[in-house]
């Protein structure tokens, strides 16, 4: 990571596990890679887990303003979130769109990566719930925002035993896709 402060926005709809993804990413960066890190989210009416956005800021220095100013990386798992948050991505930023749901990618000056992540979760890993983790894998592989080792450790530490293996599998699948996307 060469920029002082990296801003990542993970967006989608409630129930897609984006807060958890943000936390894992933050833990990877903060605990295992030794960066400073802030993770925030926005909620719907009162706290019923209806969050649609989770933000992570990673920096070598102490982080002052804790919210995303311009995202360096946007993950969009739904069309709505893609349309809404793309405006706030920096000009040379990165968009990762889940083409299962994002059918129309908005015009954007930065880099665009597309992959049917939800489809993969269902078909390759066999569980829609790991869409978030596959996404993490792709992002890490694409951007080296944290080390693969760190994200793996963070994921392992978070996951209860019975679903750990499944999630690691999802993460590694994400790495693979990331590698492929990078080449394209």
């Amino acid at each position, binding site marked *: 990571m060469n920029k002082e402060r990296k801003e990542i926005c993970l967006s989608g709809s409630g129930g897609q596990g984006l807060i958890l993804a*943000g*936390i894992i990413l*933050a*833990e990877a960066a*903060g*605990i295992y890679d030794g960066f*400073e*890190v*802030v*993770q*925030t*989210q*926005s*909620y*719907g*009416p*009162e*706290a019923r887990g209806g969050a649609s956005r989770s933000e992570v800021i990673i920096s070598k220095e102490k*982080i*002052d*303003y*804790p*919210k995303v*100013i311009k995202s360096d990386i946007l993950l969009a798992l739904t069309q709505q979130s893609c349309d809404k948050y793309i405006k706030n991505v920096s000009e040379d930023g990165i968009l990762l769109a889940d083409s299962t749901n994002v059918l129309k990618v908005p015009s954007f000056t930065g880099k665009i990566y597309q992959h049917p992540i939800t489809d993969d979760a269902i078909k390759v890993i066999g569980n829609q719930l790991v869409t978030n983790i596959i996404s993490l894998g792709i992002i890490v592989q694409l951007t080296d925002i944290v080390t693969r080792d760190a994200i793996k450790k963070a994921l392992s530490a978070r996951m209860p035993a019975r679903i750990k293996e499944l999630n690691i599998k999802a993460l590694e699948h994400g790495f693979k896709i990331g590698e492929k996307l990078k080449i394209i």
Partner: protein
Amino acid sequence: MSDEKQIVKILQGNEACVEGALLAGIRFFAGYPITPASEIAEGMARRLPKIDGKFMQMEDEIASMAAVIGASLTGLKAMTASSGPGICLKQENIGFAAIGEIPCVIVNAQRGGPSTGLPTKPSQGDVMQARWGTHGDHPMIALAPSDVNEILEITVKAVNFSEKYRTPVMLLLDEVIAHMREKVNIPSREQLEIIDRKKTNVKKDEFLPFKADEDMVPPMADFGSGYRYHVTGLVHNEKGYPTSDAEEIDKFLRRLSNKVELNKKDIVIKEEYSLDDAKIAIVAYGSVARAAQRTVKLAREKGIKVGLLKLITLWPFDDDLINQLASQVDLIVVPEMNLGQMVREVQRAAQGKSRVISYTRIDGDLINPIEILEKIEEEMSQ
């Protein structure tokens, strides 16, 4: 060993508050759920039983505050947490804790008001309420951290102050920092200064429960420890019994407020950024102070000499600090997530020595660094 002492975790603000509270010795928590403070109760529910501490979910916020006071009287360090609507309900019993000189900490994770308002959005709309919410003249200490590490650290301080001064202390979070996660270095108990209330050691029949020492604070005794005494919300004498003697009333009520006001030196916590050569000062607190920190950077990059005074202790308010600052700078900007509350105190203390202006935002989003800078530039061009 020293590795084990400093544990690094990614914690939510509310979790850091739990962590700090437990380190400071909180062993009783009573609360009633409310967004964005519920995670504090949830953390306490999980943690306290593991260390034989007591967690209670009460029927409402009034009862929570009452239970906390009762618990504190038996010698346990006690805490509650809520947000605007619940803090309103606690006011009467906060006054009781103040007059009864019963240590306790009240966390207010602020959300948008008034009324139910904007339950999931941040605000700093309760900072005046923190001072004036309960009726009658009363002491008040209120602290406002601005990052997750600071939440841990200031929570410890809040508990310490409450014990040291035998008074309710309000810890003011806001939804941004309450729900935000950051890297936290969790210290060990040994690394922290932990203050326990002064206990009496006079003979049992000589105990005057409300006779203060020189520091204006009376030593305390636990219910059940053999010192039997009376605690009342009526104005009382040194024995603890109701009085209508004008002299006793005056003496008691002035001591009550003065033990906080006259110990300002000890209680006021603040941080200064780039103030040395500043001609413009931002005065900020809570999550907004972090935006202001960046504003300072951005302004300096542009060659504008801006500095930041970050207030952590909001109450008691340090007039002298502001007055001095006003003598130094030409302009003080006070950005707040409310319609201009602490700015009134800044204006009062500045006494016309510098211009003091308010920048407000109340739409549910954190003030950003650029807005503040723009406000400064706008004011400069006038």
